[in-house]
Structure formats: structure tokens, C-alpha cells
């Protein structure tokens, strides 16, 4: 058959003569098909193509014809292995030319569409190859949501320590040049930002930095106020303007800031310029550390050149019992509160009773364990990551349980077992990439400068997120969380069950499974829209938003209905009841329907929230602010009132 006058345009970029044996080769290489069957299929394909009398064909089209024959022969598994990932030309054009309507926060440009296109292919890959068909179907149907599928080959988010850079410099694998440990604060800032950008390339989520002002402090001895202000400006502006980087996105960065020296760092020898120990402990730099924290907030308070707030890097202010006995805390808290009042961006993280956390992406945090306090003596070891986040669609479970308590918990347990399995598969996939060490795609994370890889899988967590607890309870009991004590109690029972279940599964799998409040974003919309379609009779009165226009959502995680006007006091108290159960971090947003709330009243509220509630973290949104990180839709709802 070599005399067939047919030419094939192949993917690698050439035009070659038709050669049937290429089909056989590909089938044998990519699938587990029997050689005889491969031979048979290749002949059938040839016949179809020859009969069509075309003179020119592309390799992808041949592949589709082969796939069609595989289906005819009932070889579904082989077809999946042989399939091609890609997008219809129409979709590519839409993506390249028009702005993404669903996510207005993503900038539109060639860089960002590169990212979107690549992500859509990796997402298809993940669902076909990383996860089982059962898990993939659960995601597609909307029983649960696997986050960041388009970045399947990266862990989710990370908590990092400046000490690593201070000790080892910027010593990245594959880097053209290697920088020694910094000697000047400006250089430390530069290295921190470059390292963050590099980390953004291997993590899909936020890049958090622990105790930033404290770890800068040994570099700040003898620096005057003006220089201090300039350094603070440099740090914030350089981070904020990284939107010119990968995919046109900002680095989702977090600066954890402390007024007092956290207990676990007090007697730790300080690393100074040039990577050398200064001979002092961190406690001795409290003065510099505080001056830098204040300088940072003065910059946050002023905002950018147009007086607009900085969304990144997010300032996370930690408050502990010791905060209230440390000198000057009132003035500092007032400065932070003023920033809340004017700009709305500070996050107040409450570390009660000796707990310590490193916060990322506005609500996720890593709670330090015993071994971590040991690591704190050499803080460069303190590197944390959450590998994956999977969210469970809670309202759907209520629809399926039809008011039956036992059924509801049974279904929830089932979903959680599915999530655990999804986590194991993700861990195995990421581990296989890490296993390639320096020559693999995650070489940066395999970098080993202190006796273990930068990415410490042994300390990694896996997140169980939840969406729409409020709507679950609403359907199950007929009352929303804020509407009755019974509803609130039932909500707590559900989350307590999830916590226990996650821990038990963690034991079984030998992995760290913790609950997290899922960032709402598009998941809240996707799952509500799917339920409206497939559970119409039940979801109709429950989904929030406008069911007629299809602009619907579920309430974020364990939040109370965001559209209901409620005293911020009752909101922090009630939402706070859930926070101790959610180890990987929770947040309450305080919407203030007043412009420029009095900063002293804000500090007053912060202090009372710390002392009188169990709430883990709060942030304020005065009337005018628009927050990019959570529930854009719900926010508009609130504003309309």
C-alpha cells in the first residue's frame, strides 16, 4: 500500500507520505492493545481514509479516526490512553481575543492566555491520568471540586522563611547565576522577590513569608527613619508590581508580621548580613523589628501612587496574648486599624494560648506543631506546604439525604473518602515529579541545601474544603445558620464530623488531612449552577443570587449568609464557633456599611474579638473597598443593600 497518494501533516512540523505502520507503532507505544488488534485497526483506518478520497490529512485527524475505531471495538480504556488533549479552534480564538467574563480579576493579555490554554490541557490530563474515573466524574458532576487542576503538576501553596535566603543566598537550580547570602537589606528584598517569583512557578497558590519584619531586623540596625520608610516602600511596591510576571498575575504573597517577638523565636540566634550569625538572639532586635513593621503599615496606609490599596502582598498581623503586654502595642494597633479603615487590607490573625501560625492566601494557615517549634531553632527549616485542596459540595448532600440525618452523614463520609483518595493520587503524582530531583520539573523544590529537599513532603498537608454549609443546613432543617440555634448547632455538628473523619482518614493514609475554608471564587458559582440544573426542584429555593439569570452561588464554606445584614459582632461570634474546628485557617469578613470607620473603634473591635470570641482571623471591608480575594459576587450583593 506504499503507493497511496496521501500526505500527512505531522505534529512535529513536517509533511510526510502516508505510512500505515505509524498507526500501529503509536497504538503499541501508548496503549496496552494487542499487536493483532493494532494491525486490524490500522487497516480499518486506512480504508476509511482512502475511501474518502482526500489527498491531505493532519495527524490529529488520523488519531481521531483511530479513536473512533477503538470505540467501535469496545476498547474504551485504550481510547483514553490514545486520546489527544486539546481545544476546539473556536474556544482558542475566544480565549485569545476576548476577556474572560467569568473571572474579571484575571488580566487579559498574551501572557495570561498562554497560561489559560496550558491550564486547560493540563486539566484534561489530570482528570484522565492522575485521578480515577470515579473521582474525575465526581468533580465533573459537581459532587466535589478539585482545585487548581490546570496546575496538576504543582503543589498548592507554601509558607516560607526568609532565613533560607539569608543563610544560603539565591541558589536556585538551573539559575544562570547564583547569588551569595545578602549583605544589605535592599539585596535581601530583591532576593526575596525573585525567590517568590521562582516559587510561584512551582506552586499554584499563595507564597507566604513568616515573621518578615523580625527576620529583616538584623539588617536594619542603625538605619534611620527615612531609609526604613524607603525599604518598606521597596518591599511592598516590588511585590505589588509583579503583575508583569507569569501569566500576568500578581504573586499571591503574604507577609506575616509580628509586633512582639514570637516566643519560639526569642532565643534563636539571629542571622545577619552575609549569612553569618550576628551573635545576638532575635529578641535583641525587637526595636528594629517594630520600626520596620510600623514603616510597612505607613506604606500600606498611603496606598499606591493613586492612593489605592495594595492587594498583594497581604499584611497578616499576628496577635497573641503577649501582644497586649508589649510596649507600644496600642499605637501600632491603631496604625493597623487606620489602614483597615482607609484601605481595608490588613488581616488580623489571632494566635491564642501559645498557638502559632503562618498564614497564606488570606485564610489558609499552617499551625505549628511540636516538631516545628524544634525547627524554629533553625528557622530556615520552617517550610510548609498544602499540596491540594478539594472542596465538598455540601448542599448537594442535603438534597440527596432528603432530610434523613443518618443518610446525610453517611453520604458526607463517602465524599470524604473520595477526597482522601484524590489526595493520595495527587501526592503520588507530585512525589513522582519530585523523585526526578534536579532533572525533573520540580527541581527547584528538590533543591537540597540544608540536608533535606526544600519541599518537605513529610510536613505537607492536604486540605478538605467545604462549600455551602449554610445551604446544606437550610435544606436539611429549613433554617439558615443565622436563623436558629438549632441550625447553627447542626452546622457545628457537620463540621465536627468532618474534622473527626479527616483525622481518621489521615491515620489510615498516613497523611495530614485538615479542614480548610475554601476560598469561594468560581467554585461557589460552578457548584450552585450545576445543582440548579441537576437538582432543580431542591436547589431552587436554596441557592443564593439570582436563579433566573443564572447568576447564582453558594455561601462560602462555613460562613453565615453574606447577603443578610447582621451585626458584625454576632457574625464574628457565630462564625468564630466554627474556627477551632478548621485547623488550616478560617476568616470572618467584617463588612462595615460606613465609610472611614473610626480607627480606635476598629482596634477596640479587634481586641474584643481576640478576647471574647474563638474567631481565628478577621479583616474589615469598609463601604468603599473591593476585595479581590473572596466572593466578589456576594460582596456586590452586600453593597446593593
Amino acid at each position, binding site marked *: 500500500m506504499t503507493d497511496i497518494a496521501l500526505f500527512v501533516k505531522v505534529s512535529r512540523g513536517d509533511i510526510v507520505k502516508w505510512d500505515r505502520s505509524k498507526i500501529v507503532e503509536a497504538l503499541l507505544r501508548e496503549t496496552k492493545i494487542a499487536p493483532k488488534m493494532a494491525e486490524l485497526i490500522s487497516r480499518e483506518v486506512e480504508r476509511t481514509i482512502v475511501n474518502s478520497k482526500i489527498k491531505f490529512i493532519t495527524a490529529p485527524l488520523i488519531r481521531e479516526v483511530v479513536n473512533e475505531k477503538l470505540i467501535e471495538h469496545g476498547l474504551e480504556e485504550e481510547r483514553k490512553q490514545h486520546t489527544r488533549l486539546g481545544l476546539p479552534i473556536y474556544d482558542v480564538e475566544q480565549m485569545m481575543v476576548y476577556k474572560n467574563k467569568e473571572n474579571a480579576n484575571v488580566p487579559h493579555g498574551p501572557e495570561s492566555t498562554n497560561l489559560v490554554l496550558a491550564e486547560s490541557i493540563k486539566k484534561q490530563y489530570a482528570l484522565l491520568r492522575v485521578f480515577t474515573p470515579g473521582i474525575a466524574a465526581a468533580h465533573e458532576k459537581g459532587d466535589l471540586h478539585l482545585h487548581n487542576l490546570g496546575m496538576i503538576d504543582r503543589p498548592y501553596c507554601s509558607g516560607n522563611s526568609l532565613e533560607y535566603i539569608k543563610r544560603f543566598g539565591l541558589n536556585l537550580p538551573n539559575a544562570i547565576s547564583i547569588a551569595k547570602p545578602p549583605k544589605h537589606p535592599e539585596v535581601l528584598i530583591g532576593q526575596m522577590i525573585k525567590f517568590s517569583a521562582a516559587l510561584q512557578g512551582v506552586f499554584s497558590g499563595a507564597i507566604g513569608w513568616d515573621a518578615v519584619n523580625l527576620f529583616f531586623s538584623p539588617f536594619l540596625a542603625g538605619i534611620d527613619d527615612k531609609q526604613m520608610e524607603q525599604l518598606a516602600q521597596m518591599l511592598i511596591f516590588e511585590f505589588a508590581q509583579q503583575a508583569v510576571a507569569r501569566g500576568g498575575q500578581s504573586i499571591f504573597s503574604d507577609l506575616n508580621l509580628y509586633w512582639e517577638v514570637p516566643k519560639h523565636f526569642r532565643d534563636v540566634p539571629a542571622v545577619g548580613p552575609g549569612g553569618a550569625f550576628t551573635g545576638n538572639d532575635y529578641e535583641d532586635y525587637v526595636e528594629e523589628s517594630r520600626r520596620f513593621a510600623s514603616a510597612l503599615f505607613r506604606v500600606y496606609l498611603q496606598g499606591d501612587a493613586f492612593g489605592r490599596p495594595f492587594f498583594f502582598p497581604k499584611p497578616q498581623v499576628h496577635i497573641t496574648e503577649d501582644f497586649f503586654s508589649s510596649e507600644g502595642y496600642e499605637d501600632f494597633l491603631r496604625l493597623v486599624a487606620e489602614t483597615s479603615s482607609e484601605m481595608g487590607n490588613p488581616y488580623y490573625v489571632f494566635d491564642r494560648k501559645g498557638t502559632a501560625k503562618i498564614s497564606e492566601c488570606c485564610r489558609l494557615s499552617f499551625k505549628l506543631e511540636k516538631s516545628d517549634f524544634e525547627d524554629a531553632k533553625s528557622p530556615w527549616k520552617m517550610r510548609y506546604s498544602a499540596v491540594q485542596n478539594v472542596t465538598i459540595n455540601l448542599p448537594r448532600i442535603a438534597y440527596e439525604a432528603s432530610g434523613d440525618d443518618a443518610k446525610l452523614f453517611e453520604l458526607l463520609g463517602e465524599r470524604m473518602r473520595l477526597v482522601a483518595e484524590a489526595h493520595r493520587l495527587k501526592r503520588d503524582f507530585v512525589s513522582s515529579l519530585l523523585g526526578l530531583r534536579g532533572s525533573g520539573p520540580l527541581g527547584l523544590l528538590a533543591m537540597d541545601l540544608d540536608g533535606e529537599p526544600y519541599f518537605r513532603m513529610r510536613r505537607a498537608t492536604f486540605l478538605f474544603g467545604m462549600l455551602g454549609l449554610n445551604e446544606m443546613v437550610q435544606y436539611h432543617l429549613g433554617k439558615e445558620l443565622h436563623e436558629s440555634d438549632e441550625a447553627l448547632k447542626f452546622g457545628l455538628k457537620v463540621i465536627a464530623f468532618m474534622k473527626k473523619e479527616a483525622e481518621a482518614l489521615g491515620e489510615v493514609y498516613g497523611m495530614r488531612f485538615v479542614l480548610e475554608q475554601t476560598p469561594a471564587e468560581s467554585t461557589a458559582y460552578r457548584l450552585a449552577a450545576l445543582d440548579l440544573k441537576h437538582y432543580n426542584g431542591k436547589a431552587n429555593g436554596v441557592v443564593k443570587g439570582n436563579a433566573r439569570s443564572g447568576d447564582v452561588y453558594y455561601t462560602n464554606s462555613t460562613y453565615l449568609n453574606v447577603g443578610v445584614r447582621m*451585626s*458584625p*459582632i*454576632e457574625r464574628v461570634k457565630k462564625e468564630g464557633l466554627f474556627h477551632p474546628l478548621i485547623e488550616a485557617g478560617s476568616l470572618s469578613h467584617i463588612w*462595615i456599611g*460606613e*465609610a*472611614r*470607620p*473610626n480607627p*480606635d*473603634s*476598629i482596634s*477596640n*473591635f479587634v481586641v*474584643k474579638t481576640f478576647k*471574647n470570641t474563638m474567631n481565628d482571623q478577621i479583616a474589615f471591608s469598609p*463601604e*468603599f473597598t473591593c476585595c479581590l480575594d473572596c466572593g466578589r459576587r456576594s460582596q456586590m450583593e452586600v453593597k446593593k443593600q
Partner: protein
Amino acid sequence: MRLKGFVDTSFVDWDGKIVSTVFVPTCNLRCPFCFNHQLILHPEKYPDVPESAVTDFLKRNGDFVDGVCVSGGEPTTARGLKRFCQDIVSLGFKVKLDTNGTNPGALIELVSEGLVNYVAMDVKAPPDEKKYGLATGTRSPKVLESVKESVSFLIESGVDHEFRTTVVPSIHSDDDVEEIAKWLRGSRLYVLQKFQPERAWDRRLRKFHSQSDSEMERLASVASRHLGRVKWRGR
């Protein structure tokens, strides 16, 4: 007491405090720049707030709420004000009274009986009968007389207080602000407030613009020539 509005949690009504604010729907003045006139003209459009709604909220949230701000309208025109304040105080909360100062008798009584912990009193114009009449939409000379009595009382009484003026572009000149400041010498705090044109009672005022932040800074510095503490507020 008849209440027509309840902001359960306010961060703006009492500096440094978290308060619940209630509104009285009646007033004896007709200030052209008043932005609560809907409440005064059409109280029936707003649902009544039972006192129990307020006290229940306070009882539930005493660990956060510092006090209650009684605003309006003009609270001293309401029947039952004194008893309401007594109830709040007996629950262990502080009371702030917003008043236009036209009822010094009631003011003196509430303060001397320890039923009010903070008074925010409007000073609408310099102590000139014509100007005061213009700024309050009234002709009675008694208005200014009463206001003067309240001003003196607050300065001398020792009760914590602030005086405040909503500065309206067509009504108040720099000189007016300076005159008011002179009149208020010895007061604890003087606050200038931005005008809110879109909500002004007198339609003719709605075409004016609100002041910029820097304009407010400047006016505050004018007042500061005669007073210890001066601030400005407004979005």
C-alpha cells in the same frame, strides 16, 4: 420612646467605642442641609423599632458594645428620653446624646443625673441671630439663646463632649468657622463635618459639592487658632 432606626453596631458614632445607635424621628429645627429630613417629614415610612429590640441586642452583646448613641432628629423632643437613658444605664452601658442644644433644660437634667456620659452638640452657625436662623431654618430668637446656654453648660459642666459643625459651602465662610471657634473656647473637642449635598433637605443646596479632604484640613487649621482639639469627619 418612639424610635425609628437602629444601627446595632456602629464604628463611627462615638470615637473609639463600639456603639448601638438609635434615631428619634422628631425635630424642632429645619436645617436646610439636614440629611435626615426624610425621617422627620415621613416617619411613617420607617418601621417602629421597639425598645426591646435595642435592649435585647445589648444584653446579647454586652461583651462588645460600649454604649448607646441616641441620635435623631432631636432626641430631646421625644417623650420618654430620660427613662430610656435610665434603662440603658441600668443595663451597664454608657450613653451618648446627639443634640442640637435647643433644650438646655433637658440636657442639664440628663447630665446632672449621670444619665449621659458624652454629648455631641451641633453648632450650626456663629452666635449671630440672623446666621443661626438661616442655618436652622427658624426665626425664633429663642433658638440661639438656648443654644448659647447649652454651650456654656457643656464647657463648664465637666461632662465629656464635642461640638460639631456641618460646613456648608453657601452658608459658612472661613470667618464663620473662625467665629464659631472663638465662641467655643474651652471646649474639649471641635469637629468639622463634610456636607452631604445629595441628601440635603433644601434642594437648592444639592448642586453644591462636598469638600475635599484637603479643604477640610484647611478649615480645621482655621478653627485650631482658637481651640485645643479640632478634627474633621466625612467620607
